[in-house]
Structures are given as structure tokens and as C-alpha cells.
């Protein structure tokens, strides 16, 4: 049963990567990367029990923290960039 969840998660990660490659805007790519990170946490948790090594759960916890901080940092960067550009054009943000 762990194999089914592992395969479903891997397929979803492949679909998210495809969306990150195809994505027309920057925000589609950020969405896909965020989804990929969450799926990585799930995959690590399932693999910890598939191979009977609960140490992997620490890796999953650390990856969840890193993923959240990374996505917020990237979004703040793009948000301040778009604000700066619209301020340079003199338009309303």
C-alpha cells in the first residue's frame, strides 16, 4: 500500500515539474515549486515507513521548514519588484 502512495506522489511531482516548465507566468512556477515541496515532504514521510527507517521524518520536517521560508522569500522578492516597477512607471500599484 505504501508503494501506491509513493507512485501517486511521484507522478504528481512529475506533473508539478511539467507545470513549472510550462507555466506562463512566474507565479505559476512558484505555485508548482511550492506544490513540489509539499509533495517531497509527503514522499519522505511515506518512504520512512516503506523502508522502516523513521529517521527520514526529521528530514521531512526540516524540508517543510525550508520550503515554506523559500517560497515566502521568493514571493516577497517578486512582490517588491512589481511594486518598484509600477512606482517607476508612476502608475498605481
Amino acid at each position, binding site marked *: *500500500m*505504501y508503494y*501506491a*502512495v509513493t*507512485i*501517486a*506522489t511521484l*507522478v*504528481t*511531482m512529475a*506533473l*508539478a515539474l*511539467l*507545470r513549472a516548465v*510550462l507555466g506562463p*507566468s512566474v*507565479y*505559476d512556477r*512558484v*505555485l*508548482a515549486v*511550492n*506544490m513540489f515541496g*509539499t*509533495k517531497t*515532504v*509527503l514522499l519522505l*514521510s*511515506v518512504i*520512512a*515507513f516503506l523502508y522502516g527507517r*523513521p529517521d527520514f*521524518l*526529521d528530514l*521531512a*520536517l526540516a524540508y*517543510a*521548514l525550508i520550503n*515554506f521560508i523559500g*517560497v*515566502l522569500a521568493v*514571493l*516577497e522578492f*517578486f*512582490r517588491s519588484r*512589481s*511594486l518598484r516597477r509600477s512606482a517607476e512607471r508612476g502608475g498605481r*500599484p
Partner: protein
Amino acid sequence: MATLLDTLSWVLLTVGGISVLVGGIGALRMPDLYTRMHAASVTDSLGAILVLTGIMLQAGWSLATIKLVAILLFLLLTSPTSSNALASAALLAGTRPFAETRQEQEARK
């Protein structure tokens, strides 16, 4: 009792895997950013809850369960936050939703 827990955790894992897969397909196939975000949040919340609860039932009372609860709580706190930040950043940058709002429909008439 053990059989019941096993069956319950298998059901949870299967439904969780299906919802993860459905959300992935939706994130690839939906027409614009906001609907894609809707599909991705299905995998982030429902899929994570079901899969992690299914694993928790397999783990029993141990340190692994505490770690799984921590992972689940953290995912449930952070994924709506990052979705909100993503939507507000996209809206601020001028990405319009695919469907018209009611005000836009009335303005077009």
C-alpha cells in the same frame, strides 16, 4: 483491533494518494493561475491530512507519531499562508482571473 486499524489506514492512504494525484492533474490542466491554485491546495491540505493520518495509524504510539503530528500541523499552518501570499502577489502584479467578475460583466453591458 489491529485488522481494523490496518484497514482504516489503508483506506486513508488510498484516498490520500488518489486526492494527491487528482490535485496534480488539476494543477496541470486548469486554465488560469487561480484555478490552478485551487487544485494545488487540494493536494496540500486534503492529501497531506489523509496520507499522514494513514501513516500515523500504522506507526502506533511512538516518537514517529509525534514527528508526524508536528509535520502535519506545520503543513496545515504554512500551506494556506503561502497560498495567500502567492494570490496576493499575483493580484498585485496584475494577473486577472480567467472568469469575469459580476462588476466586469455589468461594465461590459
